[in-house]
């Protein structure tokens, strides 16, 4: 079938898998594509394939709420997320693609005295780590975002907020397409409709992957499969401390510009921004139970809407256009797991839980470096799987929690 002459050029080829690659990345979402891109850009590795069981960036990359920030509590997290934010700041230009990256400011609301203490502590910790952070009292919150109800009427009144002005949002599809186009231009094969069904491991070292499109030999294999990482790890014969949960989000009908910043609240489990197109984008908390079904319970959406309306009475007559869920892989300390696995030359990058989108370039950068050199990138080192044995956890439940 010939395509209509008005159809724009495709941004990447649609190749069949070759029999062998130096590096095979499993998972063609944001992190997998960023890893492929940086393998080529930073390390000159282009004999690389990205295997995606569905279509490119059709999983969590298409389902997240696109919030970008780096105001995490601990040094290790601040370092990797700030590295990522700095990459975001130059990424549109570097990839020659408008990512609609908008540093409109991210508010993290405090609704209780403990929230206030935690928020102020995080502001100071951020500043010590060179991450921009401010503490706003309730009146300043109202000034920064006039449509928030900061009165004492709501069940959980707004008592203040942290503000990261450099935080914001980006257009997730554009990010995926831009990374895919550049990876493809380097000669990397982006192979869609190719599900990994097993690993060939000889002498404790991975030699090939078995896929729905045949065997592919690989010097190194890098997992970037988010919610399905546990399934792959089981095929490779090791366990990871991950649990997969549905995380729901929704968009409203299109509205005139009404909200020009990102508002997040851990306590009442909602986060809101207004996309460029005009819809309100809202995220909920995870559904409690383990699941791989990409849908969640309506009661979670109801609770999220109730919280949103407490904060924003102006949204009371806004209609929900659609809701959906992605499957997120949650780790015990709400921090990612990056690095080596018990199988030699098989690497893992997972556990980003509810907040992986913001890390897309930073994650790809450190993961590519880890794969290329066979040892953890310094920013990735604290996030190694071994921390669950040594006890050196990076507990980001405060900064990450549900509203990630």
């Amino acid at each position: 079938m010939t395509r209509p002459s008005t159809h724009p050029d495709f941004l990447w080829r649609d190749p069949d898998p070759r029999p062998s690659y130096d590096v095979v990345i499993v998972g063609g979402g944001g992190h997998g594509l960023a890893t492929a891109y940086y393998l080529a850009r930073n390390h000159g590795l282009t004999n690389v394939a990205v295997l995606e069981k569905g279509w490119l960036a059709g999983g969590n990359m298409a389902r997240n709420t696109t919030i970008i920030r780096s105001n995490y509590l601990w040094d290790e997290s601040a370092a990797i997320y700030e590295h990522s934010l700095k990459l975001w700041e130059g990424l549109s230009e570097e990839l020659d693609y408008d990512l609609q990256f908008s540093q409109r400011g991210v508010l993290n609301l405090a609704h209780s005295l403990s929230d206030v203490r935690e928020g102020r502590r995080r502001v100071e910790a951020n500043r010590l780590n060179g991450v921009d952070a401010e503490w706003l009292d309730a009146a300043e919150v109202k000034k920064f975002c006039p449509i928030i109800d900061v009165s004492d009427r709501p069940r959980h009144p707004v008592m203040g907020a942290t503000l990261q002005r450099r935080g914001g949002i980006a257009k997730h599809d554009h990010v995926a397409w831009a990374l895919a186009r550049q990876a493809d231009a380097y000669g990397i094969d982006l192979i869609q409709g190719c599900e990994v069904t097993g690993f060939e491991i000889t002498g404790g070292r991975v030699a090939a992957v078995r896929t729905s499109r045949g065997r592919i030999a690989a010097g190194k294999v890098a997992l970037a499969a988010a919610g399905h990482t546990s399934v792959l790890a089981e095929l490779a014969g090791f366990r990871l401390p991950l649990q997969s949960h549905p995380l729901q989000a929704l968009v409203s009908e299109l509205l005139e510009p009404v909200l020009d910043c990102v508002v997040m609240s851990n306590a009442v489990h909602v986060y809101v921004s207004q996309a460029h197109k005009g819809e309100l984008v809202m995220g909920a908390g995870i559904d409690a139970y383990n699941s791989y079904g990409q849908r969640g319970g309506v009661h979670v959406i109801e609770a999220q809407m109730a919280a949103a309306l407490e904060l924003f009475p102006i949204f009371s007559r806004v209609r929900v256009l659609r809701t959906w869920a992605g499957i997120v892989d949650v780790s015990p300390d709400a921090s990612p797991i990056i690095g080596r696995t018990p199988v030699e030359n098989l690497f893992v990058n997972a556990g980003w839980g509810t907040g992986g989108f913001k890390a897309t370039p930073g994650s790809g950068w450190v993961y590519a470096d880890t794969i290329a050199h066979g040892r953890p990138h310094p920013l990735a080192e604290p996030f190694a799987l071994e921390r669950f044995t040594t006890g050196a956890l990076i507990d980001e439940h405060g900064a990450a929690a549900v509203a990630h």
Partner: protein
Amino acid sequence: MLLIPCPFCGPRDETEFRYGGQAGIAYPDGETTDGEWAAYVFMRDNPKGWFHERWFHAHGCRTWFTVERHTVTQEIR
């Protein structure tokens, strides 16, 4: 919304329950290595398919019980 069969109260809405994760995690016997302890504390099965798991009828009879649920179809048997 799941409909969860409480062994005491019968089928009830998911919102009455709290989730307890994988069933059958036994406290390790005797001395453990760091690896064994980490496995006990942090490692849980995460299957795509049938899963034995704990639920707590928090807003009902307050019984802990185990069900087998499919993590894709959400069917409980």
